[in-house]
């Protein structure tokens, strides 16, 4: 009971913080940053406690709260943790204070508004993760757009208006079709439950649906989630949004927001429509592998340092999708780890890029060179995060990608024996993504850090401050922890991964229509 209160605290604290900040009439910028950091640090404590208290042997929902909200429709305030969202909630709460501290000097105008929006964003992200009610989930899912829209639009780069409108219109278009699918799904559920509507995930996951209907509904859900992930060919909003967003915006976008798409697939999209998933798996898997390879290829040729990391995100999230579709426990667990790992690594890389951008004010890769000599500590961290992104053993990136590929091959092998070559071919192609990943990251590090010293605008670049070092060190520690000791995280998510595997492999076509 007490622990479910803790989960509510994790959810509502940022909103309370935003309201407190708004009500302060005139405050110094430093105070605003300080208050936000403290609030988000406080948010992390209960999240960590909940992680510790999470019972790995218990597969159902833990720390749940269930209060009726809109009785007429069976909508309730249902929140809780399970193995699917546990790590992501922890990741979100972990990144919160780091974003504020890491980008302490990145935002200089309208500081209060920025931090209010940051707290609101944190609130909606945690909300979308912990919701166990489809109506509530949709509210949080869409509400996330508003603070991000303003963040990119107000503090972004030159083409910020274009980027932010593109971001909102892309994601909102997916969501509007998902809304239609939600209506159909809920009414189908109500039809079978004698008119009593319910939006609870647990109820909706038990609705038998005809195969054709499942395909339509999955298409609508998948469009929305695939835009958010983003999967090729729906990815074009991401580079624009990333490049134009201010550093903290990019960090949150890469660190947490993109995971919403893969989380949506794992929590809702696939388990709700298992028969349609089996039909669509070849298409979706191909798209995932195309995302891996195409994202890596695009990252290889970028001249803008933020774009390199943006495209690398597309590639890394392709692995998550591949793992989720692998029909193998290792692959699914790898996907879960990869989500967290990418959150940590991409956040670190965007912080690093933001730090150098603050000093030199250009994102042209060609303008830089020999940073290792000017900023040795920076270079050290940059190499460490590069290696984590590449997936060097001992870092979290390795755990994630290795398990995903292992799962992809294990899942593909029996099908190969049955004469279906596609999964195996896809798994092999996906493996080349690892090589491509090493290629673009090392090219980036090489031109960036080594070679002749170039100083953009002839400014001498100062090395990292204590604050910046501390943030990066904490992130790195988390990456190494997940890389060296993934056991506990894997154990806590195993139950949910098994449940997911069982859900997507159990047909839910009504027996009379089979």
């Amino acid at each position, binding site marked *: 009971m007490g622990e479910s209160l803790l989960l509510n605290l994790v959810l509502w604290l940022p909103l309370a913080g935003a309201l407190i900040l708004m009500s302060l009439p005139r405050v110094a910028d430093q105070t605003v940053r300080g208050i936000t950091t403290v609030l988000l640090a406080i948010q992390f404590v209960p999240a960590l406690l909940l992680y510790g208290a999470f019972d790995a042997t218990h597969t159902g929902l833990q720390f749940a709260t269930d209060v009726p909200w*809109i009785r007429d429709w069976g909508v309730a305030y249902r929140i809780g943790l399970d193995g699917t969202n546990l790590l992501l909630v922890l990741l979100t709460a972990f990144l919160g204070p780091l974003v504020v501290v890491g980008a302490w000097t990145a935002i200089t105008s309208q500081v209060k508004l920025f931090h209010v929006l940051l707290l609101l964003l944190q609130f909606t992200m945690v909300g979308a993760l912990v919701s166990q009610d489809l109506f509530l989930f949709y509210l949080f899912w869409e509400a996330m757009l*508003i603070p991000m829209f303003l963040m990119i639009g107000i503090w972004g780069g030159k083409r910020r*208006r274009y980027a932010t409108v593109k971001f909102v219109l892309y994601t909102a*278009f997916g969501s509007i079709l998902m809304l239609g699918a939600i209506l*159909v799904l809920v009414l189908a559920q109500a039809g079978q439950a004698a008119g009593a509507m319910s939006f609870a995930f647990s109820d909706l996951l038990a609705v038998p649906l005809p195969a054709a209907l499942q395909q339509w509904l999955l298409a609508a859900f998948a469009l929305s989630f695939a835009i958010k992930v983003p999967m090729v060919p729906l990815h074009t909003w991401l580079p624009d949004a990333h490049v134009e967003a201010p550093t903290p915006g990019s960090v949150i976008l890469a660190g947490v927001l993109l995971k919403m798409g893969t989380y949506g697939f794992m929590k809702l999209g696939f388990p709700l429509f298992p028969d349609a998933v089996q039909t669509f798996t070849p298409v979706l898997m191909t798209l995932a592998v195309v995302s891996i390879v195409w994202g890596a290829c695009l990252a290889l040729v970028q001249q803008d340092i933020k774009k390199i990391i943006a495209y690398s995100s597309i590639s890394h999230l392709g692995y998550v999708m591949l793992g989720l579709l692998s029909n193998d426990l290792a692959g699914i667990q790898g996907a879960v780890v990869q989500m967290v790992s990418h959150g940590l690594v991409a956040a670190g890389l965007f912080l690093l890029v933001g730090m150098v951008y603050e000093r030199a004010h250009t994102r042209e890769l060609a303008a830089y060179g020999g940073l290792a000599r000017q900023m040795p500590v920076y270079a050290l961290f940059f190499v460490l995060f590069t290696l984590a992104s590449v997936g060097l053993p001992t870092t979290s990136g390795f755990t994630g990608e290795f398990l995903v590929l292992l799962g992809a091959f294990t899942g593909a092998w029996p099908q190969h024996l049955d004469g279906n070559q596609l999964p195996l071919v896809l798994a092999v192609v996906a493996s080349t993504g690892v090589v491509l990943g090493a290629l673009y990251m090392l090219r980036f590090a090489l031109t960036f850090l080594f070679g002749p010293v170039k100083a953009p605008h002839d400014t001498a670049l100062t090395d990292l401050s204590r604050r910046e070092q501390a943030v990066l060190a904490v992130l790195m520690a988390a990456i190494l922890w997940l890389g060296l000791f993934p056991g506990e995280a894997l154990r806590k998510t195993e139950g949910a991964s098994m449940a997911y595997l069982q859900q997507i492999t159990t047909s839910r076509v009504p027996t009379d229509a089979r």
Partner: protein
Amino acid sequence: MPGSDALLAMLPEHLLLGGMIIGILCALGTRTRALVLPVSLVVVAASATAAFWLAATGVSAEPFPGQYLLTPDRAAAKGWLLALALPVLLMSRVETDDFQYPLLVVCSLYGLALLPSAQNALVLFLGLELLSIPVYALIVLSFRRPQAAESALKYLIMSGAGSALFLMAMSLLYGATGSMSADAMEQAVASRDPLAQGAVLLAVASLFLKGAVVPFHAWAPDTYEGASIPVTAYLATLSKAAVLVVALRLFHGIVFAGAMADVMAALPLVSIVWGNLAAIRQPSLRRMLAYSSIAHAGYLFYAFLGDPVGREQAVLFYLVVYAASTLLAFAAVPADGDDTRRDQLDSLDGLFRRNPLAAGLLTVAMLSLAGLPPLPGFTAKFVIFKSVVAAGYTPWAVAGLVGSFLGLYFYLRIVMRMFMEPGVATDGSAAPEPAGPGVPLARLAGVLCLAATLGLMVAPGWLLARL
């Protein structure tokens, strides 16, 4: 006893009537004229309270059998509509300090109050005319501006044409069925008789005309543009609500099928799409909100596709949310500069730096109108589309949802103007907010609407259970 029934059941109307008389008496003396607005406010508030009280005590009465029926549901609807008139009255002082405005609004509200209880097409007609006639005068009231006369004339002619269509429909209905009650309409919708079908078609056309649904919408942008802001606010919210209430009464319990269902789906859909697209290009706030209201009329009439059981709830909920958000937008538009300046959308550029409160309120209003969760505009759309899907019109619902997506852009543009444009140079010498007596009142109107909007966001179920 019918006499006491009429006294009790029509209490809200009686209070409004009393208010009108007191208002007219106050308007006679030059010194007492200032009292007209407070009197109107008190009377409207009292009348709304009376309606809520009737709903809460569960009074059901039919003082005029076959003409006027009061049930708790209808009393509640009446109460909400009247309560929405309060911000309309409050925000008027910024534009006009005339005594005519509140007086005419109260007169018009009398017609509005009749509508939810009307059992007969003639009573509906009476209510609609009582509502419209003071509005012609209201538009001309802002005669300082050249467009006002054109605007009033357009509204007069189009509204007159709408009334004529309505009357024609009723005479055909009477000819076909011998009655003008809602039951007669039900018979007419079901029958194959060309006379009866003509009646239905004309009735729908007249409601679409008055509610500004494409292709009968062209009067709305011109009229809204010509009228002053509080009048536009009244036109866009309560006057539109009245048309929908008429539609609810007239088509009470009727399921549209066949060709008629296609008409009831296609025109509102075109309205949604066209309203949302045309709004993008409007440089004027009122024209933009006019197109927005055309789109919203589309959503509202979409609800008539659905199951008649949940229809009233869906439409009334949508009306309350839509009206609260629209009134919030009108109340929050800052009062600096003259009317023409106020109407230009580029005057909103950089508003957040100059006036963060107004920018915040306008943002809430725009996002709610856009239907972006978690604001109540979303819940309202959800109710409507839920009923459409439940009625089996899923492709139409999806088309409507995509149409509503098109509307996102122009609402976001307003938010972008306020937050992301540099705006006029703010070197500290920016024009100080005119400290007229109207500004605090308009602010109060804004706060009321904000409270309603946020309340509906947190507890939509509370209102849904009471409609």
